[in-house]
């Protein structure tokens, strides 16, 4: 079995740590939980962008060109896994309408859709990994909360991250009030209607603050960039990470509190008035020699 990592361009540009975590978690699961021989996680080098920005902004013909590329690039693999909820839903839900039913392209996108999964979905529904088997040696008790990408609705996975991370003991997973409401990112909507987008983001951050969690797990790179960027501008101490990072940190595959893609502490030397008083540092005191890490 060959598993391809679908990196997404946004994550390659903004959040490489989420991609590293995805690889590390997948490899950990394959080696230590499933003890599968001969399953590899590969990085198809030619992949670029899935076409979501064109598709969402009135350029379906341009999106179709990139959809065809995606089909070719991922053809040799048995499964395509991505940490990004929205890019996953584009492949799964939206590609099909770009091509005439019965055409070779249509068949190709249907085949790609059938083997493309968001990471947590892949672990839960395809590899059938009981999250309890993903518990780290010293489960974290740090409060975290989860925001799922709205696009996960389309693949019936909205709201699935928090329960999975709870059972994997990735921390004290707090329920996010009004979790169903969009964070306001919405791709180019965020720049076309910045005031509305920001108002929605502020509401989301207020709900996050109300949980007492200093770490937000967001299942889409776009949502994460929007919320982390808003928090940073407002001097709110909040780490924003992906579900893959939450799992990788809990399993000791990544050091907790590394600053990638998030905001580890209040800028300007901490903000004593901020809720949670900034980030006191890595809760698990860092973990330089990660157990179970690497390949034998």
């Amino acid at each position, binding site marked *: 079995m060959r598993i391809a990592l679908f*990196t997404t*361009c946004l*994550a*390659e*540009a*903004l959040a*490489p*740590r989420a*991609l*590293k975590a995805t*690889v590390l978690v997948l490899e950990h699961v394959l080696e230590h939980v499933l003890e599968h021989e001969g399953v590899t996680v590969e990085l198809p080098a*030619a992949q*670029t*962008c899935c076409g979501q920005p*064109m598709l*969402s*902004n*009135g*350029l379906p013909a*341009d*999106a179709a*060109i*990139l959809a065809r*590329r995606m089909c070719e690039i991922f053809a040799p693999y048995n499964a395509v896994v991505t940490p990004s909820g929205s890019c996953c839903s584009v492949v799964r839900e939206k590609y099909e*309408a770009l091509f005439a039913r019965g055409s070779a392209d249509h068949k190709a996108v249907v085949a790609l859709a059938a083997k493309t999964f968001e990471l947590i979905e892949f672990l839960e529904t395809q590899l059938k990994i009981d999250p309890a088997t993903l518990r780290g040696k010293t489960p974290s008790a740090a409060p975290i909360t989860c925001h799922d990408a*709205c*696009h996960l*609705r389309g693949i019936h996975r909205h709201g699935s991250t928090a329960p999975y991370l709870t059972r994997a003991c990735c921390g004290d997973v707090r329920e996010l009030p*009004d979790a169903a*409401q*969009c964070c306001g990112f*919405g791709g*180019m*909507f*965020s*720049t*076309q*209607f*910045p*005031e*509305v987008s*920001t108002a*929605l*983001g502020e509401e989301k951050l207020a709900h996050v603050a109300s949980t007492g969690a200093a770490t937000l797990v967001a299942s889409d790179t776009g949502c994460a*960039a*929007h919320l982390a*960027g*808003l928090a*940073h*501008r407002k001097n709110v101490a909040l780490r924003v990470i992906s579900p893959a990072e939450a799992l990788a940190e809990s399993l000791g*595959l990544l050091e907790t509190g590394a600053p*990638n*893609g998030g*905001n*580890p502490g209040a*800028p*300007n*030397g901490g903000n004593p008035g901020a809720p949670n008083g900034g980030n006191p540092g890595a809760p698990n005191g860092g973990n330089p020699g990660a157990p179970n890490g*690497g*390949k034998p």
Partner: protein
Amino acid sequence: MNPLIAPPLPFDMKPRARDAVRDLKLQQFVGNATHLKDTQRGGIFGRDFGHDYDELRTVARDTKQYALDHLDELLERFITNAEKSGAKVHAATTGREACEIALNIARAHGAQGRAMSCVKSKSMVTEEIGLLPAFEAAGIKTLETDLGEFILQIDGDAPSHIVTPMIHKDRVATAKSFVRELGARYTEDPTELTMIARAHMRGLYRTADLGVSGANFLLADEGAAVICTNEGNFDLSVGGPPVHIVFVGIEKLIRGACDLAPFLKLLARSGTAQPLTVYTSFVRGPRRVGEHGGPKELHFVLVDAGRVGVLASEKRDLLRCIRCGACLNACPVYRKVGGHSYGSMYAGPIGAVLTPELERAQGNTDAGLANYADLPRASSLCGACYEACPVKIDIPKFLMHDRARLRERGLSPKSEGHMLKLWRWLAERPAMFRFAIRAVRLHARMLGSKDARSGAEHSWIKSAPGPGAGWTQSRDLGIATGESFREWFARRDNKSGGGR
């Protein structure tokens, strides 16, 4: 007509949206009410049908779609059966025609030298065709009898929600309006406020010459209309005056009472989280011999006003809409900008896709989309509307469809189009695409700001040019500037060992 819902065209949504976001009262009223209704909707469906009521939605979707696919046949059947029961049926291609028909009916009953009066129950299609301004111009004094619509009427305000038209106001504003317009004593008690309105209206029902209403469903087999209300005002408006006119969009037709059940199960639950509206009234024919109530004359005005055009277009699914308002309550953008930001009597997700197709939006140029170019873009495509829709209208799909139409007609910002085309061109060339990503990361490393605690491997861009300015006006952009994912992946592949 009220410029809040019939603005000068082309309509610019952005200033209204900006103002609405800063309007703290609107944020509170609309935010609270929509969240509450949306939560209660989920609750009542869960309680009554289990959380999966998808089957019921599918039945409703297919039933309504069947009716739309057989609209010609059903229209004929409705007309035959309605006339058989003694009602008069009129067809209006345009809103103006619909108003003219009503004015002619009124004139036929008008007494010389006496002003006529009309009691009207809530109807979106009458907002759409501008019935009230037409009646006022003809000297027909019209009373909105739905409490919310009544308050909006005395305030010179306009509805901002399909189902709860005064969602943007509260009872404090209502109390003040009642003191000012009705000479009532000041009270904020909802029951007392309702009694004040009731006392004001009761006599007017008795003396009105004309009753006007909309309809939720038209039954072809029975030649009847079904009207769902909570206040009983419809029954009074149809029971008192000698003449009643039902205005109804042609898309409200269904086969007959045999098909009504799924819609009644869905409508009130979706809209207001009630199992049924308080009143579900059936109107069939005028008063018959021996009956004590009901109008002596009953008219149906079947309104097209752009609907036939929608039926022939790719957006025909929109005509399935039963105006429950669930998509408005579920929509994050509607919750923030309120109904008046959409510049139409149909706000929220369904309004964003429907408004450009309506007759009035076309102006004189047959260019509804050009007149409402902001509407398809005012969405994060989160899909909450589709999830809430009881007849499964894939609203995000139609928003994307309209975005493509905007782009084809050159109605979207050009710079944005060029950028997306360039992005796609680069994406076909992996080496160049990777170079572009590296350039972004390099840019961030050189010019972005670093915090003491975010380390050397993370930068924040605080101001960006072009479309990026919309981002950085309120947000920073965090970019990881250290080792790229591909470098890391290649490094550990080479070592074929750990490393992170």
